[in-house]
């Protein structure tokens, strides 16, 4: 089974986001805290590694983004993904339709010397833009079925059984491969890279292809920080000495 996992490099914030001067993007210079992937996507990669461990085959991570997206791919190679592909952009944002088209093209290309992909895994929504649609658009372009919001996945005899959490119960879906499945954080607990994993990852291939950016149809104009009440917590005290004051707050707000 050949599995593709699509991931997106995003900045990691601490307590607050800071915007650049013309409010078109997050300021990653002054508030720099590094880059990461969505937990949904880390789980998608973990699912791919587990499926290949159980069924054989190969796993490929595909990322549309700046050349440095290779750093996030390298992290996933260290936990067992076999190879990576960067569809390189100049850092301008691509809308979901353009993103889906570029990723679909890489899925169609298949795995060098190993044939076509049987399964594409993505996060249900990206960490930053949360468009909830790239996987669905890819499925339409590929002519494959798609299940989204998946929190439980097993594959046998070419059929994927997917569970989706809805309130207090789970819905069950079954689809024949090839298919697109978008997963959610919590479907598994992603493993941490080991030192041997990191060493192996250095030798695994990451290919780069150039992306051609079509005009956006969902076109970002500007970003802003939502108005939030500026608060500074009232300090009730230090250590266990503050407990009586805490109990007073419980009384005031009526929880005891």
């Amino acid at each position, binding site marked *: 089974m050949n599995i593709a996992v699509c991931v997106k490099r995003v900045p990691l914030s*601490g*307590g*607050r*986001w800071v915007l650049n001067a013309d409010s078109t993007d*997050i300021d990653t210079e002054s508030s720099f805290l590094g880059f990461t992937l969505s*937990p949904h996507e880390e789980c998608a990669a973990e699912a791919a590694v587990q499926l290949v461990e159980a069924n054989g085959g190969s796993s490929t991570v595909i990322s549309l983004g700046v050349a440095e997206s290779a750093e996030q791919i390298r992290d996933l190679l260290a936990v067992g993904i076999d190879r990576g592909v960067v569809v390189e952009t100049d850092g301008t944002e691509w*809308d*979901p*339709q353009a993103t889906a088209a570029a990723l679909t093209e890489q899925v169609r290309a298949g795995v060098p010397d190993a044939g076509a992909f049987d399964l594409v895994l993505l996060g249900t929504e990206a*960490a930053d833009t949360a468009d*909830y*649609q790239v996987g*669905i*658009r890819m*499925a*339409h372009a590929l002519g494959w*079925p798609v*299940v*989204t*919001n998946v929190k439980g996945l097993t594959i046998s005899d070419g059929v994927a059984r997917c569970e*989706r*959490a809805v*309130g*207090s*119960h*789970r*819905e069950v*879906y079954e*689809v024949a491969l090839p298919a697109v499945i978008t997963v959610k*954080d*919590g479907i598994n607990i*992603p493993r941490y890279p080991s030192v041997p994993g990191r060493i192996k990852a250095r030798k695994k291939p990451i290919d780069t292809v150039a992306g051609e950016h079509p005009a956006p*149809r*969902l*076109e*970002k*104009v*500007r*970003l*802003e*920080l*939502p108005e939030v009440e*500026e*608060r500074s*917590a*009232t*300090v*009730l005290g*230090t*250590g*266990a000495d*503050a*407990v*009586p004051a*805490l109990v007073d*707050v*419980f009384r005031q*707000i009526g*929880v*005891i």
Partner: protein
Amino acid sequence: MIVVYADHDLGILDPLSLQAVTAAKALDADVQVLVVGADGRSTADELGAHGATVVHLAVHDALTDYTPLAAARAAQQLVTELSPQAVISAGTPRGNEVLAHLGALLDAPMSADTVSITLSASGDHEVVRNRWGGNLLETAIVHAPVLLATIAPHTVTAVESPESVTMREFTPALDPIDTAVRVIDRTGGGGGGIGLADARVIVSGGRGVGSAEGFESLDQLAELLGGAVGCSRVVTSAGWRPHSEQVGQTGTKVAPDLYIACGISGATQHIAGCRSAKTIIAINTDKDAPIMGFAHYAVIGDLHSVMPALVEATRAAKG
């Protein structure tokens, strides 16, 4: 005219769909609602009470339970027939999914998690939408004749606006491929976090709790206050607590009366899940942790000494 796709489960309307109807009413008085599946018939009165003029009920033998692509096919047929200015839906998992399918079928853009919409006759609609779980707002132009958008939960309050609603049944033309992906079974034990989403009090723990055992005092306090235990992602990825208890952007969004954050730093992705809490109390060794900018009250100190004492004092106060 606006078409709203109503999200219902076996005939029970998702309350967020009424918010979507109210949002649509603000754009146009003529709001026509698509309900998919014969079991959705029961939703018509509630939709009419909130301002739907027509309920289009898509009925088909193959539509026995939620079937996302078929729902989008039905919506596509309404778009062709009625030429609405916009198709909108609640930003629920199903609403987002059906509108994304519709976007793919129409080869049209779709704006998810939208907080405001300005329609334009020229087809360059302006939307404001959430990014990063609502920690950032994006203003965007959607270049499309028909705007497709899902409405972020709780950006509008559903208001009644009674109309004499007409029910119109139709049978969408469906290919077998449209119904290939559908709910085939339901199982219990989902752990979807309903308990957490409805809890009035949440006692939440982060990395500072240190271990699975460290949650004992949090469990005890939650029980005393009739609440639930929550946690940060550091905690679920360490396997200390199940993911159903994770609060945040990729966990559950909660809005309790009281949220107690123990050993949680207050990363934006965690705050995305708890910023609607009425009162937030932080217990943290670091007086400069970002959580202090969101909490109403704070105790500076080691939660391992504060929490057991707080459990005792709360028990005593309850008598």
